[in-house]
């Protein structure tokens, strides 16, 4: 495995932990950090060969941006669906 392949493999290995960290931010409603973590995931996942994860993270980031800092019940449910899409694309539980 060349160094680039190793880095890609490392990213894939650590992806579930990244998704878990996002889940934790969502659970604790740390919205600014959550948006930032989604932004980072949207930027990096595609570069590491996972464009679907990137797209799902970007959609969730855009959703939060559109909702503003306080989400009502319907918006929370909407975000939960988008987060589950990220988990599904990332193969995270």
């Amino acid at each position, binding site marked *: 495995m060349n160094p680039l392949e190793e880095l890609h493999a490392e990213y894939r290995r650590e992806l579930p932990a990244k998704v878990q960290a996002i889940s934790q931010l969502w659970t604790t409603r740390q919205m600014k950090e959550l948006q930032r973590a989604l*932004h*980072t995931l949207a*930027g990096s996942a595609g*570069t590491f060969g996972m464009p679907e994860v990137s797209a799902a993270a970007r959609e969730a*980031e855009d959703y939060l941006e559109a909702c503003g800092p306080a989400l009502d019940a319907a918006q929370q449910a909407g975000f939960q669906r988008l987060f589950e899409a990220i988990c599904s694309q990332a193969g995270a539980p």
Partner: protein
Amino acid sequence: MKRVDADVVYALTERGSAELSSGRTALSSTELSVLVLLDGKSTVGQIRARAGALTVEVVDKALERLLRSGHILPAVDVTSDHIDAGNFFSASVSEADAAAATLKANGFFVKFAQRAAQSRKLAAGQKILALVVEDDPQLAKLVRTYFQMDGMETRLAGNREEINACLRQLPKPDVILLDVVLPDVDGFDVLARLRQHEAVKDIPVIMMTAKATREAVLKGLERGAAGYLTKPFHIDTLLTAVKTVLGLAGGGPPKPK
């Protein structure tokens, strides 16, 4: 000189789209800004209004050049009976909001870098030094590894303090790759400061960011970025962009005759 008609709508041709996505370009910052503003729906009048610091004359000249070079073409015939002119010309209260929404809409992905004014050839053993400002350690490592494989050296910085520390070191970097969303500083502000600082103002800066909006790309161009790559990107494209802004072989494109 005949003024460009304010009612015309221009759209990017295939060549125009390619110019914003190939990782390299021979266009000027002004021409790039106008290309970024053209969404295939807005009239020239609306584009002029959104062009910020660019004067009407500058925008019009850029449009004429882009038209001549085949980067843009008229999108629709606004005199046609089939066009709902009201969409384009009504001065409704919401027009400014719509313009702002267009500029801020996420999903405007570009990959371009402006060619250096002069070609450059490295001396035997000479290595390019890149400062990579990226707070995602894995992405920073990927870029560094790839650059090393191509014979380049890198310095990594992930926050304001590290950026300052890296810029104080000698030799100065040949090129700076700059993320926008950083933990304690905005990359656009860093860009503006770099452009004002005598010691580093001539170092080409390529924005490398997940900020994928027309507004963000324009901000980068206005503040003097030599290139803009939205994430995600292919790492090859990043290398092409670096070589382009440095005038090295493997960048491009060749100077127009």
